[in-house]
């Protein structure tokens, strides 16, 4: 088993961190996933939905990495998909490329708040999982 698959205890702690999203307006669910698309922890998403979010999120993070590299812009940090029903933001956790966080928010969310909360959350997760 590789080092980027956190132990069960760490996954439990990560889930606690994600629970903080309960206080952010408009957030529907959040999924922490490995770069190869496995869910590590989730908040307010059922198992099937979080598995799919993890897979699609990891593709987007990998495409983001490829695109930033192609443009000579260094490492991928985050991407936000905005649609008429809301927004999904995908942000890298910590300095390694091993994990990202996807957060789904409805129309009532304020994008700036969402990004700020997500950055805070990623920092907390990085301390916890990627010291």
């Amino acid at each position, binding site marked *: 088993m590789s080092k980027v698959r956190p132990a069960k205890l760490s996954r439990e702690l990560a889930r606690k961190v994600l629970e903080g999203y309960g206080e952010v307006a408009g957030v529907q669910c959040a999924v922490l996933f490995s*770069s190869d*698309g496995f869910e590590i922890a989730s908040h307010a998403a059922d198992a099937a939905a979080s598995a799919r979010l*993890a897979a699609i999120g990891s*593709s987007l993070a*990998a495409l983001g990495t490829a695109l930033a590299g192609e443009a000579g812009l260094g490492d991928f940090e985050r991407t936000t998909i905005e649609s008429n029903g809301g927004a999904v933001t995908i942000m890298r956790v910590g300095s390694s490329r091993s994990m990202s966080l996807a957060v789904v928010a409805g129309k009532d969310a304020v994008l700036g708040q969402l990004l700020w909360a997500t950055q805070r959350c990623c920092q907390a997760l990085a301390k916890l999982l990627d010291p």
Partner: protein
Amino acid sequence: MSGVEAGEFKIVFTGPMGAGKTTAIAAISEGEPVRTEVENTDRVAHAKESTTVGFDFGRITLADGSVVRLYGTPGQVRYRFMWDILGRGAAGVIVLLDASAPGALVQLDVFVDAFIPHVAHGALVVGVGRTDVPNAPSTDAFAARLDARGIVAPVLSVDVRRQGDVMMLVRTLVCILGSHTAHGVPA
């Protein structure tokens, strides 16, 4: 339907994890292909170090300036959504398999089922690696599997690390496309 009207000619390489899709595209693409490989954290499923989670992208430019796009899909079923995105509008599909992997024959079914709906002109070619490993199914076993489903598609043993072998797969695909255009039953 093929996407030639849209100025796009796309060949998709697909197949399970570790079959050599990224290697195959790198073998024939001009320049360095786009890769979206990340660390594989599920070494129980497959021992390889990295795996494609977005797509591979390479290209071949023809003498008249038009471009053939080569896409490689992720191999794992949880990336099925990418299969459909990449398969749409493909002129042809090359399924790569590792004969020595457990369940290789079942994998053939999985990928044929997923990509047949995208392929017009019957343009499907199967490349099978590592048929020389003891107890691995032969290419005949894969062909028989297609026969049983009424599909006539070439099954060729290949080593995708060899450029010549990958080109053989592409040539075979192009011959099929040409035959169906010239001699096929009109739609």
